[in-house]
């Protein structure tokens, strides 16, 4: 796998629901990518990842590349699907983030 490049966010799945979550600036896990803290340096992101990671809350935390602009958007399509939800039903984050995801 290609080496990950900044900017990145920290993402995981919520332990109880499995929902995709992102680490925010307050070291809390948010369901919104727009709330995620964007790291400009990989080493900083990795250190915050290990500091913030709490197995009682989330599963499988890792760094995901993003593109910064008017909105923070996932760089790889896999992360795009995690962010948007599946393409066959509006069962994922589309249900609560329609405007942002549609954009």
């Amino acid at each position: 796998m290609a080496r990950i490049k900044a900017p990145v966010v920290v993402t995981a799945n919520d332990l109880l629901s499995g929902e995709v979550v992102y680490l925010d600036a307050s070291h809390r896990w948010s369901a919104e990518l727009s709330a995620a803290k964007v790291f400009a340096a990989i080493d900083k992101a990795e250190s915050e990842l290990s500091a913030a990671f709490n197995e009682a809350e989330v599963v499988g935390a890792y760094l995901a590349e993003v593109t910064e602009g008017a909105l923070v958007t996932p760089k790889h399509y896999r992360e795009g699907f995690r962010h948007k939800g599946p393409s066959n039903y509006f069962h994922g984050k589309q249900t609560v983030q329609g405007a942002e995801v549609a954009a």
Partner: protein
Amino acid sequence: MYSYQEFDRTFVRERVGQYRDQVKRRLEGALTEDEFKPLRLMNGVYLQLHAYMLRIAIPYGTLSSRQMRQLAFIADKWDKGYGHFTTRQNIQFNWPRLIDTPDILDALADVDMHAIQTSGNTIRNVTTDQFAGAAIDEIADPRPYAELIRQWSTDHPEFQFLPRKFKIAITGAVEDRAVIRAHDIGLQLVEHEGRIAFKVFVGGGLGRTPVIGQELVDRLPAEDLLPYLEAVLSVYNLAGRRDNKYKARIKITVGAMGIDVFRAKVDEAFQRLRKVFNGQDLAILGDIQKGFEAPEFVEKSQDAYFDALDNDSGFREWVERNVSAHKHPSYASVTISLKGHGDTPGDASSEQMRAIADLAERIAHDELRISHEQNIVLPHVAQADLPGIYKTLQAIGLATANIGLISDIIACPGMDYCALATARSIPIAQDIALRYADREAEIGHMQIKISGCINACGHHHVGHVGILGLDKAGVENYQITVGGSAGNDAAIGEKMGRGFSVDELMPALDRLIEAYLSLRLNKDETFLAAVKRLGTIPFQEALYVVDQAA
């Protein structure tokens, strides 16, 4: 159908209780995720892209109406009102919360179902012909043997930590509808000197190293089935590689050892194990077989059936496509297509599940099957009842007459759900079905199978046209194979060349299909027959004509 005994019920309830405690300990922090993960997987609970996923075993694809209604109940109460039927004849729920999974397993236990051994390096759900017990070309019903294997393999202490997962498929018919030669072990019931025997294939499998299974023995007496299977598993358990998961399936073991050496080792183990089986397995088989006796077929007036055939072209087309011959002359087997044009292959809503359960209970001897092609089957239907069934299916959006046609696509969940996927499968299947909806009768029999990664859950290798979704430098890319087959002439499709982007894929398929239509001898020559006659080069040239022009 096989009915659970008190032993089965106690065993399943105890497993749910153990799992409930494991979830509790995970939520309390007494178990780490590393400790908990194998435990949840042993109970069918995966973590996918957007949520947890629960994979529920449907043994040899057989369900009662009561069980189907319970799946609908689970879909409504704990999921999003639908379920996804898989190529393993199982069902998956894509959105359960971890905390609810013990309650779901309890609800399954209420109807004699579970999710045990739907993951892990164990013997998985045994699959079979969706028309078992009904097919006109059947030598004997394979389901009692499948049930015997289920009982033998469930929680078998020696086979809980195999080098890799292990899949067994069995057919009792002349035509292989269970893709037996793409399984670790494939069993074909044959008749020999008036007795039931098995032709045993070993080392088949798809995934990153697709292999068609080789014949291990041509006439294994039926009474030797379990000791022989145990011999195969024992040899694999010792010789299978555990250092590299990509080399750990039995197909690699057989390939490295050679079929003759492997057979000799199995025979040696079999001679030892045969003495251990003291006939108890045969006594159990006898009890099991009582649960699979054919229903009492009823003779009914067929006037309405023939009248509908004469006067309703939609019904006639549906009968032609979706209704199969039954061993009883006035009965038929109905395949309910879960491939409506533009729908997600294999998905059924809770409302549809209940309506199908009602149909099965009222007029189809209370039996349902799930096919590996991700459709639902009513195996025993009086022809007289076909018009009524067709009308009910029309009302719930499940009367699509497309079995065996281009829109009857196998597709894995792909990157819309699966954490392992490298590209999406579902939207590709939807696009193909919609694109050719008006031409599928003209195109005729064509099996398209789509996988969203190299693990090949969508069986792309054995599709007449296989589509494999990959990640090419951060962009979804689709490789096409041609000439695969899942039937008696099982074959791995030939890779045609470079992959196509999403935008390139449909035009490429257009060229492929137009080439077939122009090259076929007549309408009766199927796509696969044309490929066999002509080879793949004309189809390869059609796919890549754009490259040649550039």
